[in-house]
């Protein structure tokens, strides 16, 4: 059974999400990856106002392809998340970020911040860019346009298929999923 959830991801919603849950996410999310994260953190550290309010917000780690005529956004599967590990704890602790969408492992510092403040890490299907593109209803660049594919986009998504990989309790599907599978083999 897939859960329907919508942004903003307030703490009560975060607490209700558990590792392994399959969800369909709708609402506004923001895109950012390597260079964009660096700028967000540096801007905040300097006391500048961020281009978007990250309180209860969700960031999707993605650099889409350009939209073809008729598309809101091009192919847009997740990029590997560990490259954002250097920045995510800061955004969770200092800017109120509660949701992240990507693929692949996160480090202990990220998981600690998620547990401490209440945040969730979703996995989108890596490599399924064409499929995920169909969930994007509207897309606009709101900052860092000079970064090209890495620009900060505001996306409106509908029923984006995601899996809760790490929840705010620190449970991690990358560990339990493999363990569960291997148990079926015994």
């Amino acid at each position, binding site marked *: 059974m897939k859960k329907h959830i919508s942004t903003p991801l307030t703490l009560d919603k975060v607490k209700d999400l558990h590792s392994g849950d399959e969800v369909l996410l709708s609402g506004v999310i923001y895109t950012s990856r390597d260079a964009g994260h660096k700028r967000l953190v540096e801007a905040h550290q300097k006391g500048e106002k961020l281009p978007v309010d990250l309180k209860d917000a969700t960031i999707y780690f993605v650099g*889409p392809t350009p939209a073809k005529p008729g598309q809101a956004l*091009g192919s847009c599967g997740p990029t*590997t998340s560990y490259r954002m590990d250097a920045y995510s704890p800061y955004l969770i602790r200092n800017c109120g970020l509660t949701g992240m969408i990507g*693929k692949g492992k996160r480090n202990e510092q990220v998981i600690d911040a998620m547990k401490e403040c209440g945040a969730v890490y979703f*996995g989108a299907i890596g490599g*399924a*860019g064409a499929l995920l593109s169909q969930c994007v209803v509207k897309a606009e660049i709101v900052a860092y346009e000079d970064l090209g594919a890495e620009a900060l986009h505001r996306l409106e998504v509908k029923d984006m298929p995601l899996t809760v990989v790490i929840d705010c309790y620190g449970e991690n599907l990358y560990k*339990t999923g493999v363990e569960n*599978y291997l148990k079926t083999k015994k």
Partner: protein
Amino acid sequence: MRVVNASEITKTVRQLCIDANVNLPEDVCRAIDMAIQREDYLPARNTLELLVENYSIAAKNQVAICQDTGLACVFVEIGQEVYVDGSIEDAINEGVRQGYRDGYLRKSCVADPLRRTNTGDNTPAMIYYEIVKGDGLKITVAPKGFGSENMSAIKMLVPADGVEGVKKFVLDTVANAGPNPCPPIVVGVGIGGTFDKAALLAKKALLRDVSRANEDPFYRRLEDELLEKINRLGIGPQGFGGKTTALGVNILAMPTHIAGMPCAVNINCHVTRHKSKEI
């Protein structure tokens, strides 16, 4: 001497860039389809079915299968009796430029690894030339995404490590990569040569159809054994658990020094793209 016009090369590269990024090669499609039949863990099967849906949408709508349309790796096999009328390198880069622009593909190339300004047109291509006999000219475009490239590794094994050393290094590399390179993966292994040649062999191994068995029975057995062991790790599609961690293991080997046994592992994701054309 056969004369090939540079513009012909540009046209071919442009088309191959688009084709490779929107139409998943038949062998990879088939390998995913077959994996679904074999996969006995339901969540994993559901994930694999989404991958089929994804590559079908991409082909139908002629959009990129994956947003990481890669660095454009271009392999050129050029007969020594071919004369190219114009700059072959400029012609290839122009083809990449046009293909990535006209195909709505992502420009993922920065001009310098430390200063990191995007070149804006996905050039320069990563070009590998091989001069062969005759008057043929074959071009292969294999866009390489970096989620999987970043999980690749090389090790200067020594003769005493033997085949067990190779197996351990391949398995450790795949296990360490876990969910990061978008499994199910294709594993390219290069053994022998020098430090650099081993890495190139591993990359070239990824060009071989996953369905095609190694011509050398020794390496065919090694590939089969490694594939079985990788698929016993339990990583599964997307790392959520399951049988299907890899779709194939392709090995290329070559002569090496009496003191050495370089071993490179180049990992590719389930979007293992390669398209070729002879001019």
